[in-house]
């Protein structure tokens, strides 16, 4: 018992993946709306 959290990479990967997926998806949706609006 060192008081340090052991492991934890799965949480780190989850947080970064979620951030990337959400930001990328929103970016794609913005470009789709821009294209639709400019027609």
């Amino acid at each position, binding site marked *: 018992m060192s008081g340090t959290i052991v492991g934890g990479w799965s949480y780190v990967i989850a*947080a970064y993946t979620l951030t990337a997926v*959400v930001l990328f998806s929103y970016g794609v949706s913005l470009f789709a709306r821009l294209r639709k609006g400019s027609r």
Partner: protein
Amino acid sequence: MNELANFRTGRLPYYLLITGVLFLLAGSYAGLFVAPPEQYMGQVQRIMYVHVPTAWNWMLGVIFALVSAIVFLINGNYKWDARLEGALEVSTLFAFLLCCQGSIWAKPTWGVWWDWDPRLTSVAVLLFAFLGIVALRNFVDDPARRAVWSAVATIIASVDLPIVYYSVKWWNSLHQQQSSPATVSNQYYFPLRVNAFGMLFLLSAFIMLRSRVASMRLRDELAGPETI
């Protein structure tokens, strides 16, 4: 109307978007593979490099929404209503991201996914308030009413922002106090700062592009049937 018709931000949002992505890639690489693990939280602390920049920039997004709402109510220029719409939606997205990242960090460190702690609760209140205003804008067809109602609602909702910021100082919060250069060592500060700028560029680009979408709709609505 002419001001709205001329509401263009050129290529700037695209440059900001590319710069933001590059900064985030560099900052995340440094945060994931270069910075050492923290003494007590170990690897889990690496979530800080994405969570804290999201939080800082979410607050900036809310402040920009508040400024847009106030300026629109003062001068009635729909350019500011379009900016308000952009800031509202992007701030809601960042608040959602912030809650999800925080939840993922909370599980290994606090042992729970969520706690009704003052910081978490005040962020959730603002998230749902902004979600409500975004929904309100979609339900109201009259552009004048939509603009005024959402501007007033944004000003009321933004009262929660100082509560979010000071909640960790005012109450005995489970959430840690704000990090600053004085509380974070240099090894941790570099990826934090690079990602903060990356998120800032991304936030700015998203708000500009979303405002452009809003201005297109407003232009059609305000032009009326006589132009058809």
